[in-house]
């Protein structure tokens, strides 16, 4: 809502010294969000005068048509002689009244006017357009042609009210009444403690039977309908400058007098109005729901197919308007230029149901000034006054005659009352306002208040948002000033800090960052393209995605089922920007459709099953079953962690050579994460997209005694690397933290530390190349028995000495007993049983044996 300060002063006698910024501060304090204060005509300096065009000489030989004019500017130029002006615009004729800026003046934008030579003539000033005067761009770029009644030489700065301040207010959805001068004026009056001149206080004739016939078939959708008729309008009558200027400052286009008047009254009183050309209506006006599929061409020229829930205005031929949203083209008011122009109008001032209007506006993607107001609540009592005000202006400005007939339909309604303890606002605020203040403040916003300790409050018709005691409390507290609220601290019960799960998530982030990974937070939107690039099979579970109805991009309509697309995107972006040695990580949710029973069977399997989260009531607590039902309809959203690596893991430098990131780093990242949970994962070779089939590790943890897959790690498949334009040998890891959490096995049991000396034994075992190191290690551990303190693989060797297809694994075994110093014989015996078990399980042969 744009509010010109000059207009606001018509209803509230603000001190003359009050600036727009002052009013802004006051209104913000009471809850109207004044976003900006625009200074119109800022920097403007005259002389700026009304001129009458005396002669026009068309200058030839230039790229565009140029006119040399003489203009009578009265005595504004000091001489009374005609002013010679060169002008490029063509929308005026000899005899027209125009606005002339004379040398010495300054236009907005620090544009100083001086006599200057141009097109072979000297131009002593300029004939002005709206945008040059800072009146807003009306789209025509033509110069202003004034109504003929103004005398040449009249000061145009004052005439056009060029210097003003306009408050731009972002009206919150509950404050529909503030979408009017009346509403803003009421808030201003209260904020300043000044009286309000309410523009809706008009003498309105009583309804009678002679008015234009109206039949309301849906009194719930339309609770109020006033129709008035004005005849004998002069079609050539134009909106006076003051009205045009107010409309312009409020951000509306001027159209024709009748339309301008309805817009003006809407801005003034907040009541949307519609004017019909009476000669174009056939029979009585009706209000009903549309028939499904009915058609209507609205004022914007769009042919609309109506829904059975749309409320329409009709005549005998069918719909003539989308009620409360937009009128129909057929009954539009005709301008004087076209046809004969409209001379008789029927004025509609009605009240429509907010929800119905909201739905229709949304259904037809048609938001209008009218629908915006109805959605937010229009004062149902304002219709008659608004109709009267419109009639008055049509009579005054268009020479019309008001017909005596007054049609008024009004569905029965009672004023809304709220019972509230007088100290309720005190309890909400934590301040002792006292009953007297509470009553006074409520009266200021228009409430009637009765009662002592228990107040009975009747809310004003323009405040449908006031429905409960807390709404009234807010009125009192905001008018008493939020800035005057004290500051106190409540004492919550002693807390338990973070949960184990929350602490684990934080630890994992720190551990990965500590290992050199940088966190990225990528968008979860994906499309089929990236799933193809990842080389996923047609029946891969990750292709079953949760999709959005309204994605930002049609290329990425789904939610991620893996963290890798986003993270690999970040890897590529960094690489493209010149950072080549990269280790990134992300933790976040993936979105998995609830299993439809047939896992991985694709979308067709979903047919016949409706996925839907029901809408529960809000007037009571839902039952636990109802909540469980809601949750069951949601996608499964487990938390995952992923890393990606490329380039050098260790840089080369003065200390020696660097080391490229490889598959082992990605597996180690999974171990780093598992270690934070106190879990040691089992690693097995796997083939799983998008990883290299020979360099892919599956990671398992034990959950409830069962080995459970918790993710994959390794080098990416070369084709994936190529298709995604990633650096060569890029590696990745992705694990599911929700699985890891389940593997957490209580508090760690402290190890017993022996202080007896250690006995070290090294063994080198030769096995076939395809025997996993993990299997050899397990056999050694199992075979070595309790004396084994630790075991470490310190070398892997292949070569001629070992033989084709074989490898040598060298382990350092450390033995120690809790109660004695081990003899060499004891350590050797333990080593031998370890080697024997490895030989039995994996075919290992002691090297050199």
């Amino acid at each position, binding site marked *: 809502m744009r509010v010109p300060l000059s207009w606001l002063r018509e209803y509230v006698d603000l001190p003359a010294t009050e600036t727009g910024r002052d009013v802004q501060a006051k209104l913000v304090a009471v809850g109207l969000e004044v976003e900006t204060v625009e200074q119109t005509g800022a920097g403007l300096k005259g002389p700026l005068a009304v001129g009458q065009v005396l002669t026009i000489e068309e200058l030839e030989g230039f790229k565009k048509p140029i006119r040399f004019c003489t203009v009578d500017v009265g005595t504004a130029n000091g001489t009374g002689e005609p002013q010679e002006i060169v002008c490029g615009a063509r929308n005026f004729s000899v005899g027209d009244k125009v606005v002339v800026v004379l040398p010495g003046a300054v236009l907005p934008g620090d544009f100083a006017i001086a006599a200057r030579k141009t097109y072979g003539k000297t131009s002593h000033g300029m004939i002005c357009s709206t945008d040059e005067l800072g009146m807003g761009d009306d789209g025509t770029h033509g110069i202003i042609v004034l109504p003929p009644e103004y005398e040449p030489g009249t000061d145009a700065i004052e005439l056009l009210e060029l210097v003003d301040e306009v408050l731009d207010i972002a009206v919150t959805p509950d404050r529909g009444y503030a979408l009017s001068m009346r509403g803003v004026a009421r808030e201003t009056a209260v904020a300043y403690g000044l009286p309000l001149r309410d523009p809706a206080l008009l003498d309105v004739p009583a309804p009678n039977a002679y008015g234009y016939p109206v039949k309301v078939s849906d009194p719930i959708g339309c609770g109020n309908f006033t129709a008035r008729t004005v005849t004998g309008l002069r079609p050539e009558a134009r909106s006076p400058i003051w009205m045009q200027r107010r409309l312009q400052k409020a951000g509306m286009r001027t159209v024709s007098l009748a339309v301008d008047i309805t817009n003006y009254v809407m801005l003034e009183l907040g009541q949307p109005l519609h004017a019909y050309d009476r000669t174009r209506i056939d029979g009585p006006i009706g209000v009903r729901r549309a028939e499904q599929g009915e058609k209507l061409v609205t004022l914007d020229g769009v042919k609309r197919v109506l829904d059975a829930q749309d409320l329409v205005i009709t005549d005998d031929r069918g719909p003539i308007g989308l009620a409360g949203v937009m009128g129909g083209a057929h009954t539009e008011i005709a301008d004087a230029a076209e046809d004969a122009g409209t001379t008789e109008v029927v004025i509609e001032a009605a009240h429509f149901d907010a929800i119905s209007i909201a739905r229709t506006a949304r259904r037809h993607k048609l938001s209008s000034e009218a629908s915006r107001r109805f959605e937010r609540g229009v004062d149902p009592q304002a219709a008659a006054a608004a109709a009267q005000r419109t009639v008055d202006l049509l009579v005054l400005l268009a020479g019309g005659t008001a017909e005596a007939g007054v049609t008024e339909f009004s569905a029965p309604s009672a004023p809304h009352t709220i019972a509230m303890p007088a100290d309720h606002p005190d309890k909400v605020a934590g301040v002792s306002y006292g009953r007297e203040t509470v009553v006074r403040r409520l009266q200021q916003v228009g409430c009637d208040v009765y009662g002592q300790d228990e107040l009975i409050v009747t809310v004003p018709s323009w405040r449908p948002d006031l429905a409960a005691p807390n709404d009234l409390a807010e009125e009192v507290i905001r008018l008493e000033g939020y800035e005057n609220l004290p500051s106190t601290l409540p004492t*919550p019960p002693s807390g338990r800090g973070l949960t184990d799960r*929350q602490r684990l998530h934080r630890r994992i982030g720190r551990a990965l960052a500590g290992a050199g990974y940088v966190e990225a*937070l990528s968008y979860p939107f994906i499309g089929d393209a990236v799933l193809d690039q990842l080389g996923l099979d047609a029946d891969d579970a990750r292709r079953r995605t949760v999709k959005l109805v309204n994605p930002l991009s049609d290329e990425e309509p789904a939610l991620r089922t893996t963290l890798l697309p986003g993270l690999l995107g970040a890897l590529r972006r960094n690489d493209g920007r010149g950072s080549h040695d990269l280790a990134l990580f992300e933790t976040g949710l993936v979105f998995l459709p609830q299993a439809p029973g047939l896992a991985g069977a694709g979308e067709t399997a979903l047919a016949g099953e409706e996925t*839907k989260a029901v809408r529960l009531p809000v007037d009571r607590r839902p039952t636990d079953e109802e909540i469980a039902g809601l949750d069951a309809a949601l996608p499964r959203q487990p938390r995952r962690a992923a890393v990606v690596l490329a380039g050098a893991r260790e840089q080369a430098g003065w200390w020696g050579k660097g080391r490229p990131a490889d598959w082992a780093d990605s597996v180690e990242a999974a171990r780093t994460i598992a270690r934070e949970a106190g879990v040691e994962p089992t690693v097995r070779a796997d083939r799983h997209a998008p990883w290299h089939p020979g360099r892919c590790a599956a990671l398992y943890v034990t959950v409830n005694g069962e080995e459970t897959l918790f993710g994959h790690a390794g080098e990416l498949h070369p084709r994936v690397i190529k298709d995604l334009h990633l650096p060569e040998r890029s590696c990745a890891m992705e694990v599911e933290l929700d699985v890891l959490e389940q593997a957490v096995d209580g508090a760690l049991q402290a190890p017993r530390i022996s202080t007896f000396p250690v006995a070290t034994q090294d063994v080198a075992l030769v096995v076939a190349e395809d025997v996993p190191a993990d299997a050899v290690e397990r056999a050694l551990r199992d075979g070595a028995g309790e004396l084994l303190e630790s075991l470490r693989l310190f070398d892997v060797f292949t070569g001629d000495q070992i033989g084709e297809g074989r490898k040598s694994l060298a382990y350092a075994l450390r033995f120690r007993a809790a109660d004695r110093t081990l003899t060499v014989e004891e350590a050797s015996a333990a080593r031998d049983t370890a080697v024997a078990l490895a030989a039995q399980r994996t075919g290992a042969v002691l090297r050199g044996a």
Partner: protein
Amino acid sequence: MSAPNKSYDPVEVEALKPEEIERLRDEAFAAFAAAGDLDALAQAKTAHTGGTSPLSLANREIGALPPQAKAEAGKRVGQARGAVSKALAARQTELEAERDARVLVEEAVDVTLPYDRVPAGARHPLTTIMERVADVFVAMGYEIAEGPEAEAEWFNFDALNFVPDHPARQMQDTFFVQGTTPDGKPTTGDESGIVLRTHTSPVQARSLLSRKPPVYVVCPGRVYRTDELDATHTPVFHQIELLAVDEGLTMADLKGTLDHMVQALFGPDMKTRLRPNFFPFTEPSAEMDMVCYVCRGESVGNPDRPCRTCGSEGWIELGGCGMVNPKVLVACGVDPEKYSGFAFGFGIERMLMFRHNVEDMRDMVEGDVRFTRPFGMEI
């Protein structure tokens, strides 16, 4: 021990003459002093204290002396050998010190050499600032609550008093999740009843349903709105929400809690300001501002000292807050006659932007390591 020598001839034991012992001693002294390094000293040691050194030989001669001469000669030789030993040890210490000093000089390195063998990692500043804010409240006794990002509309809107078709519901540009119609076709509107949560507020409802009052929770998390990414907007962003429901909570308590938060995060003399506003799930509702922590309001009306952080407004807009609407309490099964509560929420991106002078939203979403790395582990 050998048997006492019975036959001896003192005249023949020239080596035990006092002047001779002195000479041997002085020779040793001279040799030690002349030894320039530990190797030379080792040679001198062998020559002057070894088994075949003159003094050792002289020592052996003592046995051949007559008993009456033994004591005196023994004393003389013993003293000389002691002095030599001492001199040797002293020289040894001296030379070792010299050597150590030399080695330490030789082993000196250029300690200004850079070391970036494994470049440091970092957590995202949005993560760490969210934790930091949450920890302010955890320290006060609040607990951290979480919820799903793909959320039931009932939690995201209905339970929070966003009435269907109310304009407030349209204010938040919502991503709707596709459902399936009874005949298996994807839905095209909001029929699925599932959205990407537009705020962290649904966690309020979840917390009230899963806990018994008093409830004091803080809910950090990721939220979604259908904005295109540009310098000031992102469709995926983060909020932190606070909810307190207890007996007798007031707006003054809300104000005090906000003041405490900005003081904990921005310094002891910070304060907040409330301005009336509208949110369906709070009544009364307010917009909350904090004093600009950079200019402390001194840039207002002072064109010579403009403040980039607050645009010379003196205040920084933080987010929305208010007293929990009793309708929300009813929908969550809490008796509004007995309990009242307050809630607030604000955008983490915005806080990071003004706290750390981030100019472009895209820097926070693109995952560029050059942006994130300097923030390190904690913020």
